[in-house]
């Protein structure tokens, strides 16, 4: 594990232009400006909730190499990044497509054959790595992971609390090069608002050197100025603002649409049948074979999108 360079990572933030300026751009531009080969990329949301899928598609289309992915619970998106050869390492607490589909054949293939690395932390472990970075401190204490092989495997260190004498495990800060957050809405400056559960998106945005905000809707300044208590992530963290309706599809987005389990089944069926090759065929057909995420949505069909909207309301009532 890399040692923590708190000074370097603070300097990167000090050097940012923190003035209020519009940052709206296309997803293509945002991804090409802020993602790079070898980058440590963090993805907001959790498993199949508010996963920034539009940005994942754009990363796949632009074909970056040697990425490290940081996420708390990961799944389908990791399959895609692995199968297309973008990913060398996953830093997460859990990875599988979801309860209905068991383990990931793609992850198993890559990790069991040492084609990619899976650095495992506890769920709070991932959260605390981002929390420490977000707070501007190099490490933060917890009792999680003590005594486990997660502790040993990651070479984690302890300190003794100077007031209680208690042993505390110190979790090192993690500074992603870029984080992608999919919000309910974002204003032109980058103030992100999220309805429903917010997962670890706030900590992730503050931990990262750069942030791409995709959202269901880009709102004007007036909107945020009347709802500042709903802003989760301040504009100065955010470097690119992209409007992408259904930008988390086929994962869910609170209040707006449910997960599209039928699309997930479609993908899983291909992997069940053909393993990694099935995932590659899926990527070719649905992602690299189209020019934009909106084209992907068109391929899926409006009827399904509308059905997922109804489905969310049906569950929540």
């Amino acid at each position, binding site marked *: 594990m890399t040692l923590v360079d708190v000074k370097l990572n603070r300097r990167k933030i000090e050097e940012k232009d923190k003035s209020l300026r519009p940052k709206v751009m296309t997803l293509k531009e945002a991804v090409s400006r802020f993602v790079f080969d070898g980058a440590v990329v963090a993805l907001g949301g*959790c*498993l*199949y*909730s508010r996963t920034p899928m539009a940005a994942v598609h754009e990363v796949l289309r632009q074909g970056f190499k040697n990425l490290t992915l940081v996420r*708390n*619970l990961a799944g389908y998106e990791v399959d895609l990044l692995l199968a297309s050869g973008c990913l060398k390492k996953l830093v*997460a*607490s*859990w*990875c*599988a497509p*979801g*309860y*209905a589909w068991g*383990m*990931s054949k793609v*992850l*198993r293939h890559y*990790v*069991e054959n*040492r084609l990619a690395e*899976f650095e*495992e*932390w*506890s*769920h*709070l*472990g991932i*959260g*605390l790595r981002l*929390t420490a970075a977000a707070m501007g401190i190099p490490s933060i204490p*917890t*009792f*999680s*992971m*003590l*005594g*486990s*092989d*997660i502790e040993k*495997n990651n070479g984690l260190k*302890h300190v003794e609390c100077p007031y209680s004498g*208690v042993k*505390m*495990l110190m979790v090192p800060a993690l500074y992603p090069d870029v984080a992608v957050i999919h919000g309910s809405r974002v204003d032109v400056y980058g103030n992100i608002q999220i309805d*429903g*559960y*917010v*997962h*670890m998106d*706030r*900590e992730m945005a503050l931990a990262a050197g750069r942030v791409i905000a995709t959202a269901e809707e880009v709102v004007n300044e007036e909107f945020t100025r009347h709802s500042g208590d709903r802003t989760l992530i301040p504009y100065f963290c955010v470097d690119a603002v992209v409007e992408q309706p259904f930008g988390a599809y086929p994962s*869910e987005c*609170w209040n707006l649409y*449910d*997960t599209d*389990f039928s699309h997930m089944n479609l993908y899983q069926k291909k992997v069940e049948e053909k393993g990694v090759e099935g995932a590659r065929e899926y990527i070719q057909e649905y992602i690299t074979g189209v020019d934009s995420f909106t084209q992907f949505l068109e391929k899926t069909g409006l009827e399904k999108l509308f059905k997922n909207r109804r489905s*969310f309301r049906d*569950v*929540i009532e």
Partner: protein
Amino acid sequence: MSSSNQYSRSELLAVLTARAIEDRKTLFVGVGIPMLAAALAQRLHAPNIVIVFEGGIIAPQIKPSYLPLSTNEVRAARRALVLPPICDVFFYQQRGYIDFAIIGGAQVDMYGNVNTSVIGEYSSPKVRLPGSGGANDIASTCSNIIISTLHERRRFVKKVDFITSPGYLSGNRSREQAGLIFGKPFKVVTDMAVMSFDDETKTMKVDAVLRGLNIETVLSNMDFRPVISKDVETIEPPTEEELMLLRQIDPDRLMLK
């Protein structure tokens, strides 16, 4: 389905796990059998338990036949009283606000250590399992940890390949010495037995066995020898009511495989 052809092994496990749940407590669960067990207990002897999901969900009301497939999706979050950030849920637990939790595992050893990470070597695994998720955090700081898993020799191993979630580590006082000063393994519930841990050595201890099974059957399905309680109790098989309610909770048998 079991030999009696009345219920499946997962149904049996869900019912026995439900019985281990105490009323009026906060209860951390994941999807699958733990969630079914919680939902069943809620309809039986524990109407006032409060479910907590690691996705950031406190006290949801799951809609019958709309079972969640993850702990962070709308089916799990329905009508929740609080939807806190994920880290906050674990801070509530580290602070002492989560009374009980139920976790599963691919391997469990004689001290209640659980492996959900890898079969084989970590860096070159034979099987790369999904990983900890919140299980390590639960096992580290939840007040009372219930391990719920099918009773199979390949699961009850002498030494887990990887300690994802700490139990009593190497027994005796090793858990506390490692710095785990909060929480403890409380029970192990399987489809054959209910176990706890010896007060001194912290070795797994068989407290009760399902009616109709003898202790030898229980032991022959474990790769280590647990302590046997002086007074092994008999577990009654699932009642009609338990099974009926359980099947109402998961009518599509998403989790009752």
